[in-house]
């Protein structure tokens, strides 16, 4: 039995998409409900990884010429790279904020309002 058939027998595309949807939802809820900036950032990373999971699942279940679709796997590496760049910049800004205000909470970001 080759690998593609094995994957299909044990878990279907739907399973992967449900897990990825759950990850996305949990990430979104974390961003909307939590108040700590680091946690918000973790939620965003989770949403990005949900997209990665569904891309890999789509690549496996929509084979091109017998093998998995490579396009989406290449895209996935771009997403990982961009997410890493985003974290590098993001954490630097969060550290700068902590130095200036000694806080990690969104409620304390209140100097901009009319």
């Amino acid at each position: 039995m080759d690998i593609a058939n094995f994957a299909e027998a044990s878990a279907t595309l739907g399973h992967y998409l449900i897990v990825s949807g759950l990850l996305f939802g949990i990430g979104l809820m974390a961003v909307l409900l939590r108040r700590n900036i680091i946690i918000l950032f973790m939620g965003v990373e989770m949403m990005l990884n949900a997209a990665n999971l569904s891309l890999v699942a789509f690549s496996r279940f929509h084979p091109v010429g017998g093998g998995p679709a490579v396009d989406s796997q290449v895209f996935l590496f771009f997403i990982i790279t961009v997410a890493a760049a985003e974290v590098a910049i993001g954490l630097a800004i969060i550290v700068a904020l902590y130095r200036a205000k000694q806080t990690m909470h969104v409620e304390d970001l209140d100097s901009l309002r009319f």
Partner: protein
Amino acid sequence: MNPILLEAVLVCYAFLLLLVEAFNSRMPRRYFGWAAVVGTTVVFFMTFFVDSSKMNPEAGYYGFYAADTLAILFKRFILLVSVCVLIMAIEFAPVLVRYLPVEKPDAGSGEMYSLVLFACAGMMWMASAQNFVMIFVSVELVTITFYVMVAMMRGNRASLEAGIKFLILGAIATSLNVYGIAWIFGTLGTTELPEIGAILQSIDSSLFPSLLFGFGLIFAGISFKVAAFPFQFWVPDVYQGAPTPVTAFLSVGSKASAFVVLMRVLESMLSNSELSSKILFMLSLVAGVTILMGNLSAIPQTNFKRLLAYSSIAHAGYLLMGAASIVSGNSGPAIAYYLMAYLISNMLAFGVLLVVGKSTGSDELVHFNGLGKKSPWLATALTLAVLSLAGLPFTVGFFGKFFIFSSALQAQQFILVGIGILGIGCGFYYYLKVIRAMFWLPASKEQSISSPIEISKPYAVMLILLSISLIIFGVYPEPIFNLIP
């Protein structure tokens, strides 16, 4: 010349500037600014020597890149914006340096110029992107560069706060965008826009829910970039907190390049009328709400930068109105013209705001009181800018609105046109508030400027050129219109 050289040259030059800046601490930082201006201008003139055989869609680039006339036009547009932003950044450097926690007085302001170049290259790639992968990577290049630029004034709490807000909300928009692209790939098996258009022509309507879900998420990501309704709430805070040149860049460059992406994605979907009518209905809904929201919330503002932020939301609404009437066929040129008009008038407005803010230390409207007496030329320039933003005849903004509204009428978007006219009415009120402050209200002693505002010669030349083109293209719009494909 191969069109991909344009971005390549710009990015290499930006890296060179960054390296020289890092290893040479003695040279005054503003030299790097002027070097960046020269580099951007050279690339601008290079766009006129692009090999036309490389410009047709069949030229390839593995389906990632298109150098058609639309892309070249927007590359020129973005390069012009970058030149203006760089000149503004040089003028703004003394303020920037004041908020940097560094030992040497001049250090830390030089990176800004290379960052502007990186963002410019990212926007130029966005104008050419033909593949969702390319769209994603170039959009992220722009967004991540902007995270740094918005939070550039590290010693200023407002700037840092704006940076954090932009970071979190931008990251959410990115992940929505990526998730949408993943679903489109899963449904259609490709990320190339022309191929998507071909597949959509003969697609089974049982796939519509997942397609609508995917495209909806992608449009949510784009609407963050253009500052449209569900994702417009970051705009006022970020615009107010960011350094003024960055705000100008964000409001013109970022918006324009996002609109090119939006138009390309929409065009690929037009091949399936059932799907596109659903999406266009959604877009016109978003456009209407954006126009109302931007204009109505701008009315009570007392901070000029924040007022311009809400006005930029309103302008995004008018532009989306053009995008929603894409079936009329001439909304593409109308959007391009509107963006040109917006470039000229908004750059002029931010240009005057920058020097007034620099000399008074605040962007509040009360600091514009009596500007007409103190610096009549600056006041005249700002008057022209806000009149053009409001859409008064004989300014370039009038024709922008005129073309958008006529294409919306052709697409029979009557309700949207009604909302737009209501929005223009509100617009006149809050734009004229600025003129009232400058010419009618007396300047109180502690609030206002005591002597005329001094500006450097190149900066004055930029403001004069913008003012002249604002009037010339407002009376005689053909030269710009002939450039548009």
